[in-house]
């Protein structure tokens, strides 16, 4: 069962949307989830530059997992960073290190774009997620608090 990691294409939009929705359920923001498959097509594949970038994992010709990110073009180091927006593996495909493979691909992408850092947030109750990221070598940022101003 070879797992293929590749950049997402427009034809993957429907399945990417399904995984985005499943992640919204898992992370409990489905009530505010306003994305449709059409929005995925437009924002991710028809706009130039796109609003988000996406890497997918494919197994048996099916999309098994996805990772969505954006670039933060300007940092204090005068180098870009990457913000990891979403990582989700279809529960039917878990246990094959698909999450790790997607993260490794993101790290390669970050190096190729001269990025200084990849950052993201984890739900405080998501213990498996925390363990997963720590095993990769990432650390919790204890220096900064997340603020937001809702409009």
């Amino acid at each position, binding site marked *: 069962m070879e797992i293929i990691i590749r950049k997402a294409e427009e034809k993957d939009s429907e399945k990417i949307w399904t995984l985005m929705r499943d992640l919204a359920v898992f992370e409990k923001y489905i009530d505010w989830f306003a994305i449709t498959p059409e929005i995925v097509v437009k924002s991710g594949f028809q706009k130039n530059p796109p609003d988000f970038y996406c890497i997918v994992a494919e197994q048996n010709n099916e999309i098994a997992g996805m990772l969505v990110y954006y670039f933060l073009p300007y940092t204090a180091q005068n180098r870009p960073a990457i913000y990891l927006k979403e990582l989700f593996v279809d529960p039917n495909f878990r246990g094959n290190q698909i999450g790790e493979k997607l993260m*490794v691909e993101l*790290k*390669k992408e970050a*190096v*190729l774009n*001269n990025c200084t850092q990849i950052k993201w947030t984890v739900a405080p109750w998501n213990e498996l997620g925390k363990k997963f990221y720590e095993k990769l*070598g990432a650390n919790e940022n204890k220096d900064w608090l997340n603020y937001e101003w809702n409009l």
Partner: protein
Amino acid sequence: MESLKEIMERIDLIKVTEQEISLLQHISKQTFLETFSDSNSEENMKKYLEEGFSVEKLTAELNNPDSEFYFALFNKEVIGYLKVNFGISQTELKDDKALEIERIYVLHEFHGKKVGQILFEKALNLAKDKNCDYVWLGVWEENQRAISFYKKNGFIEFDKHIFKLGDDEQTDIMMMKKL
């Protein structure tokens, strides 16, 4: 021994062909032994040396159009070598836009003389000639000398892989450098 500068200036690089197969086998085995024998069982080493560097295997590697070997020569003696892979010959990733440095080995006696640096720069130039976006390699996690060499040269760790030496499981650190 001559000064560092004299040695560096007198190192030649040549592309290895099938005619030099016995020289290639010799330098491969010797450098592998020098690098790894302290930290691995004799039996595992013996097995790997016999299987990994047989004439058949090295000939096949040399004849692969997507792999290249270079010798570093000093006083007409082979003192180190480089093996790079392109395209599908890469042991992993197999990215068309990448070059894998599979091996850079230098005789112990010539460590600290920048021979590795010269071979490494050759690899970078080969990658640039082929318009690669990046070079990458796997290095044994216990080979701190190599890891610090690559870090010093701008490589970043991006993954870890398990491989087998005899019946021992070992971890390779995967590193890459953007060109």
